[in-house]
């Protein structure tokens, strides 16, 4: 038997590899129709943020369909329609997200990039190829707006809803001893913790214990024990839905049932039922209050009501606050492109976005900045809302509407008998 020498093997392997890679489908997927603009989005479809990505994708798809239904939009005398391309970052922006970023920005050449989490992870890439970036999720504090001047936030930031939560605890629920249990590794939770502390100091509420559990915790007993040691009269949970609900469930299972549990996660009844389990969820959620953006379900705007109905019919799921912002995203994009007079020039679209008005047909109830502009310093804002749970109907209902002016609660409206009206 003749042995094959290393050098021949090396060259053969090199040639084979080169050939394989060259033969790989290396032509990028060009826009098949010149009159179609791709809306490129990197969303967490799987991973620990997977309660957030899919509804955003679905709502964006609805917005795009509604725009295309009326024949698309016109820029520079040419009619365009939109198409959605969503890549999953698996809740892992630094590893999976950066590859998706290169695909959308460098290969698909999207004019504007829509992202959800991980804004900071893309900072170096923003600098290498700048383009306007619309974020429809990441309200982490410190704000992601200082990552890059091209970043816009299409939702209210953490300081716009966390202090109102503490205000409600103090003034409506009359609670003064709060225990904070946060997801230590999650920056969203850390931002909430910061603002809970600021608000508590402002309103004269005592934070009796702060406990943070590490990543991948599944048994919260020691953390619950540590938080309860200081005899709080209310519990504040930091984090997103998939972090908050298991803690709420284990609180209930440990016999802690009389204290109000507040959080800022945007839980829908569907998610509560799935994650906590039937029939337990109805009891667990009974003392829960959730403070974030307004829900489409509770809006008076007919367009928003229609969106709510359409969404529930189509996806058999309650839409969260995120879905309204996601639905509006293509409208914002179209507005910016129309104002810029181009669907390709990223810099012109960026400049147009800075001063654009609130676009027509949007449903989020945007509160405009001076001069009717959509963005206040690159942040578009809506009212905030606290929701409670109605055990008899196994659903949510708004208990508190508000808008933060610094640490001052304004435009507040406490709904006394939320479940009855609803």
């Amino acid at each position, binding site marked *: 038997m003749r042995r094959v020498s290393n050098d021949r093997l090396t060259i053969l392997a090199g040639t084979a590899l080169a050939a394989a890679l060259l033969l790989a489908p290396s032509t990028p997927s060009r826009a098949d129709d010149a009159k179609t603009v791709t809306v490129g989005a990197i969303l967490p479809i*799987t991973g620990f943020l997977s309660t957030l990505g899919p509804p955003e994708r679905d709502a964006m798809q609805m917005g795009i369909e509604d725009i295309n239904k009326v024949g698309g939009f016109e820029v520079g005398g040419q009619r365009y329609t939109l198409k959605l391309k969503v890549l999953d970052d698996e809740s892992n922006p630094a590893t999976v997200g950066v590859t998706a970023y290169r695909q959308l920005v460098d290969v698909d050449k999207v004019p504007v990039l829509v992202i959800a989490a991980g804004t900071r992870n893309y900072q170096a890439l923003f600098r290498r190829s700048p383009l306007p970036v619309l974020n429809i999720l990441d309200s982490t504090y410190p704000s992601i707006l200082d990552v890059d001047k091209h970043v816009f936030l299409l939702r209210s930031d953490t300081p716009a809803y966390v202090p109102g939560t503490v205000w409600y605890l103090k003034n409506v629920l009359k609670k003064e001893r709060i225990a904070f249990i946060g997801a230590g590794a999650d920056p969203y939770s850390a931002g909430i913790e910061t603002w809970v502390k600021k608000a508590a100091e402002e309103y004269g509420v005592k934070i009796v214990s702060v406990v943070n559990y590490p990543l*991948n915790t599944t048994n919260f*007993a*020691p953390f619950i024990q540590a938080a309860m040691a200081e005899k709080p009269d209310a519990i504040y949970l930091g984090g997103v839905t*998939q972090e908050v609900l*298991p803690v709420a469930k284990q609180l209930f299972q*440990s016999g802690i049932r009389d204290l109000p549990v507040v959080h800022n996660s945007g839980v829908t009844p569907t998610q509560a039922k799935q*994650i906590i389990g*039937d029939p337990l969820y109805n009891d667990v959620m009974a003392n829960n209050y959730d403070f974030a953006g307004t829900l489409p379900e509770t809006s008076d705007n007919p367009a928003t009501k229609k969106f709510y109905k359409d969404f529930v019919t189509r996806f058999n799921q309650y839409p969260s606050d995120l879905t309204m912002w996601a639905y509006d995203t293509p409208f914002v994009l179209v507005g910016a492109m129309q104002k810029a007079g181009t669907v390709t020039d990223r810099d012109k679209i960026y400049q147009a976005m800075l001063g654009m008005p609130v676009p027509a047909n949007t449903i989020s109830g945007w509160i405009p900045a001076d001069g009717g502009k959509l963005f206040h310093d690159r942040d578009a804002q809506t009212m905030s809302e606290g929701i409670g749970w109605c055990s008899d109907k196994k659903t949510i209902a708004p208990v508190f509407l508000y808008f933060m002016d610094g640490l001052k609660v304004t435009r507040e409206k406490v709904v006394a008998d939320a479940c009855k009206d609803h």
Partner: protein
Amino acid sequence: MLIQAAVNGVVLGSLFALLAVGLTLTYGVMEVPNFAQAGVITLSAYAMLWLNQTAACPFWIAALGGLVVGGVVSVLTERIAYRFVRTRPLAAPVVALGLLLILDNTALILFGGDHVSLSPPYAGDVIYVGSASVPAVGVALIGTTAVALLALWLFLQRTKTGRAIRAVSQNAEAAAILGIRLERQYIVSFFISGILAGLVAFAYGPMYAVYPYMADAILLNAFVVVVLGGLGNVAGAAVCGLLLGLLESFGAIYVSAAYQNLFGFAVLLLMIVLRPAGLFTNRSRRVA
């Protein structure tokens, strides 16, 4: 405070022990680090969930069905993969990781990645022990572990098959010379290990949530236990599981919660250096 921490520790320790005993059983007979056990737990939990919710079986029937699925899947991993690498200890971890990917992602494709809840009838109940409260699911976990360990002990000590498994675990070659059918013992121990995985799914699923990677993180803790107890040592795994649970529970309260897992890992590293054969073994078994 002290009692509550102890109670929490026993709950956590029972979980570790239940997981570790299954791992160490298969390690004993075949010397494979069976990471795929986490995948067996996942599939077993989804089977229970499917039977309970989609097929509308009563919870207890669903749990029983899930146990059988666990046993069958575990035997399949042995039949399809592990038996080919018995004599290649360094290939075993790679195969184990491959199997874990296969099982977890089968669950992902079949059932999606969302967290879902397995709800036994007692999911909302609480039991009070003096000043400490224990969720009923925690009590169920302790009970399951106690019964499973007792049953396993009786099986290993009192039955012919159990004694054969112990003999293979001591020395496979000698056991084969004595006329013990190795193939049969491999299958039986993987089946039992799968049943134990099913019990983890049954007892742990209701505590947190069912999702494709539900057991991956706790498996590492169980692995700490397996090594501390001495690879292949069932009694050692049971005792060390409880000890580790208590250590982590008290460590989280009195030292630092963020590095809770680190206590176990630190003890493990220390032990690998000082006593590579495990805490509870006088049989110096060096796996080379």
